């Protein structure tokens, strides 16, 4: 199949290292904390038709989303996307994930021919909209979430044309920082372009181009070999989102899997229509979540490129919550809904390969935001963090406690850092005993985090899931405990909903108990 397996291995590694070097360049020179510190960005190399060839290992939620954006730029801009130009894009309805994620696409031209593309996607700190950070908790349309950018050329002959991003610079609260981040994205693409040129002159353009084709074929072949083992099997599964934050509850996500033709068909027929709140998940993020599960379940050691999912056919009804139509609100789609998509696919896989599927993990990111006025520093503050939980158990293996799973992997805030910088005190940070679902192997435990607010009238927001239904177990394993949000004021406890924003007095304690993972197998002692 592959003509020169040794050259193949060398060029494969070189292409991966090109995307890694782009990623480091971007991280080093960006401004937004999301890029520098949470690594919420990805870089990749594509062939001349926009097929993903190699990607840096950054964050899962960009996986399937990047190629859609690149193809969207190629088909919209055609020949205008010429040497020295770069195109910008964030439209969630044509390949974007949510508005803060800006994708910049650049062609690589050798002898007047587009031989490849390089692109990067980065989470900008603010792209306008009704709230700072462009991730409003209560939005009901995309217009409230920031500036929407359909494919457009913003760099010509290597230079950024400021007029082409005037709308962005007018609406964002931090225009200088936007320009800085865009410059960093341009620089990263330039690193990629330069490295592809170097590789072509060192190893021969034709070898590189042939390896790009081989690489996809190689990954596809390896994926097919694994998927073929389940040929002819099929399964169905439905799970529910707690709420959309705008009044709708128990929102179904339904999937059917059919393994055939050495591949798999994934349909979301039967999933709820798009909702009023912002848990709608753009198609690109839906695809990323699906690809994430199949890559993690079947693709160990397989280089990540478009070949990995040419054998995964995904069908999402248009106008559903997982493929919403303009102008649906989407900002929480790729933080909370993406987690449930993973659960739904795993639930179906558990019927196909019952001995080799993990039980449900916490299925939420537990987003906490606290804002107000710091009395000691006499200044406004805004604090944001996500909290880990339990992972699902597996045959022969207990779940892991108090850790991030699936579509996120951000660090916690050290208590000594939190208390030094904000008017808050951590009263308790521990493993939530007894929250993991019982089973022959138990699910991982969630977290208990209790934070005392030391300033008057702070605004507390929580975006969380799995507060009514716990993460399910498998093969007789019990479900993990659902999460719980509690407010304690002067010793009186009151239960808080899964998603809310409210004012709290000084001395109030917010207790967040995150879900435990599902158990695996019947616990004979129970």
């Amino acid at each position, binding site marked *: 199949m592959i003509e020169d*397996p040794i050259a*193949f291995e060398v060029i494969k590694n070189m292409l991966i290292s090109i995307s890694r070097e782009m990623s480091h360049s971007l991280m080093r020179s960006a401004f937004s904390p999301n890029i520098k510190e949470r690594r919420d960005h990805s870089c990749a190399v594509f062939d001349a038709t926009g097929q993903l060839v190699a990607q840096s290992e950054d964050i899962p939620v960009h996986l399937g989303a990047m190629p859609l954006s690149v193809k969207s730029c190629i088909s919209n801009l055609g020949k205008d996307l010429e040497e020295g130009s770069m195109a910008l894009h964030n439209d969630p309805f044509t390949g974007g994930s949510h508005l803060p994620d800006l994708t910049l696409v650049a062609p690589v031209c050798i002898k007047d021919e587009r031989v490849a593309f390089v692109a990067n996607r980065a989470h900008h700190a603010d792209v306008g909209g009704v709230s700072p950070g462009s991730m409003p908790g209560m939005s009901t349309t995309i217009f409230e979430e920031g500036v929407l950018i359909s494919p457009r050329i913003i760099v010509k002959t290597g230079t950024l044309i400021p007029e082409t991003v005037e709308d962005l610079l007018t609406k964002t609260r931090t225009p200088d920082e936007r320009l800085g981040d865009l410059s960093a994205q341009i620089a990263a693409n330039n690193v990629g372009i330069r490295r592809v040129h170097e590789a072509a002159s060192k190893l021969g353009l034709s070898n590189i181009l042939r390896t790009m084709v081989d690489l996809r074929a190689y990954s596809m072949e*390896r994926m097919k070999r694994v998927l073929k083992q389940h040929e002819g099997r099929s399964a169905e599964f439905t799970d529910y989102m707690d709420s959309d934050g705008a009044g709708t509850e128990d929102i179904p996500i339904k999937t059917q899997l059919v393994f055939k033709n050495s591949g798999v068909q994934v349909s979301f027929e039967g999933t709820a229509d798009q909702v009023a709140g912002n848990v709608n998940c753009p198609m690109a993020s839906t695809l990323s979540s699906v690809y*994430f599960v199949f890559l993690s379940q079947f693709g160990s050691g397989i280089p990540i490129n478009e070949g990995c999912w040419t054998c995964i056919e995904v069908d999402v009804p248009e106008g559903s919550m997982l493929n919403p139509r303009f102008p649906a609100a989407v900002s929480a789609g790729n933080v909370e809904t993406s987690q449930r998509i993973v659960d739904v696919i795993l639930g179906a896989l558990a019927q196909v390969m019952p001995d080799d599927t993990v039980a449900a993990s916490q299925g939420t990111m537990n987003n906490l935001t606290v804002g107000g006025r710091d009395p000691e520093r006499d200044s406004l503050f805004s604090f944001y963090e996500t909290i880990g939980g339990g992972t699902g158990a597996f045959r022969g293996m207990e779940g892991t406690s108090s850790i991030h799973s*699936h579509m996120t992997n951000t660090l916690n805030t050290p208590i000594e850092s939190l208390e*030094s910088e904000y008017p808050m005190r951590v009263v308790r940070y521990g*493993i939530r005993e007894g929250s993991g679902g019982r089973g022959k192997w138990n699910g991982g435990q969630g977290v208990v985090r209790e934070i005392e607010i030391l300033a008057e009238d702070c605004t507390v927001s929580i975006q969380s899931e799995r507060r009514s239904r716990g993460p399910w177990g498998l093969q007789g394993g019990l479900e993990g405990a659902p999460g719980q949000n509690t407010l304690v004021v002067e010793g009186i406890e009151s239960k808080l909903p899964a998603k809310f924003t409210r004012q709290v007095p000084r001395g109030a304690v917010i207790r967040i108990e995150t879900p435990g993972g599902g158990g695996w197998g019947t616990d004979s002692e129970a």
Partner: protein
Amino acid sequence: MKVIGVDVGGTFTDIIMIDSETGEQYVHKVPSTPESQDIAVTKGISELLSTINVTASDVGLIVHGTTVATNAMLERKGAKVCLLTTSGLEDVLEIGRQNRDNIYSLRPTRPSPLVDRDKRIGIKERMSATGETLQPLEEEEIERGVRRLREINPDSVAISFLFSFQNPEHEQRILRAVEDKIGCYAVASSNVLPEFREYERTSTTVLEAYLGPLVNGYLGRLDASLRETCPNANLTVMQSNGGTLLCSQAHGRAVGLAISGLAGGAVGGWEVANRAGIQNAITLDMGGTSCDISAISGRIVVRSDNDVGGLPIRTPSVDVKTIGAGGGSIAWLDEVGILHVGPQSAGADPGPASYNKGGDDATVTDANLLIGRLNPEYFLGGRVKLDVGKATRAMSRLAETLDTSTEEAALGIVRISTWNMVQAIREVTVERGRDPRQFHLVPFGGAGPTQAADIAEALGINEILIPPYPGITSAYGLICADLRVDVMRSVLLPHKQEYEEVIQETMAELSLDATKQLEAQGVERDNIVFEWKIDMRYAGQSHELEVQLPVKSKRIADISVESFEHAHMQAYGYVLTGRAVEWVTARVTASASQSKVTNTEPAYNKDEQHRTEREVLVEGGRSVVANVLRREKLLVDQHVIGPAIIEQMDTTTYIAPNWSAIQRSDGSILVRRKDSD
């Protein structure tokens, strides 16, 4: 005075002795004794002394590089530890930073904590962020903690309370109680690592308690038996920070030996480069199973953190990247038929197929043998005979599946293992904004010089410096190292003129502390060299940058912010003018030189040249005739034109076509690309 460096590796224990007056050097190698490293150390030193007829009492200093701490961490063979920590936060040690290592894992795991839940004891006490007592530590609470300890009966105790770097009073009180009433190995985080971030401080303190009894026991035993062999010698040990420590002072500092074994290699490689006047060096220590890489510009980089076996350690460590690429790395095919090399290794036992000790996997060493770079009769100076037939058989099996010739398969293995190292070097250079072409490659270890030419070629490096004894460069590094102490304390203050005095005082206190520690190791105050550093960041950032300060400077506020902005520009390409800046952790390094290694002409035998020829396969499967020379017969300034091979007891150097080498007077060989002038 005679100085001995002794480095324990996975396969061999290497010993070098140098006469600090004459500069004469002697080397020796004995098989390691992993179950008890001190046996090979003592034996090797005795053997060396008896072969060269040196009086044992002339040996004044023995410097030791050991993997005792590293192995205890990797194999989880440390002490039974109890942790006393602030009530409500007993699980911090287990939760860590809540992230997973492998992003694409549906069932992530992490190393289990070194202290189980039932041995983590919450103590009622609380300090505020500024070090004020929010909840006092009552005597009854101390007694309750001591009672629990008696019930559990641990080997050692770690104490870590919230904000103890701001106010250590509670920690110190309970430490005294534990020392008085329990008497086992006990350490407090305010002594081990007075730095902020509770998880990293706690886990480092726990690691100290975990390693302390073992490491101190080992060093004590070794010291006692060396006293019999060399009655006048002080025993010092290499720390992760690239400096040494008198072994009797290792109480509370065992965690500082976490990568003792790796640090010697970087120091040794850099020392050789430095003596040759080289400013930018990539040291590449390639042994049987792994390859340790460090990119050094002007001085060895010591970073403030590190991890071993998934356990984070916040102690200063030489910046070394390790990958699984060595002579024993195994070549294998995946299910689609693509060739991979490593990270699995055949090690020394069974070893490569050609060792004929039962291994039938083709390895990098087998490949280098089959393409003619290695001499089957002169591997390790002839002590290991390589079996060409066995290597060919292993290789041809691989070649058959690849549908290629045995030769092409061997060339392919060399090419892929080269690429693995090239990628790692790019990570420590290009990805940190440095151009590898500005560096010299300094390859050593048994396998480094054999593939250095390929690596340099792939990176566009023009010059390679081969140390005099590549196989024992780590041991050489040991005798070049200084005694060194690193002390630090987090201050967490806004960068304001009014706090300048606090920083001054902190620096002075830390310097005094470091001075006392070096004096306890027999150093005169006047011989101590200090470095002042401080970690800084913009308010709101979660990563700090370390900034150098002039020692005893009176203008810390101005100078530190200038240096910080400069460093930020270098690292990230921008500065945030007008944004508030913070002082985070003050650091002082104190060092004192131990022995001066003088340059010397290589003690090589200058009679007749040893010269043969053999065929070597080069890229494309072409065969060329290479001159084969013996290292010890080379004359100073002698040129060797590639293709050529230089053999010596501890390594084989391959000089590719288009490269040429010259033997320098300091004993090293400089290999240059012909078209580089």
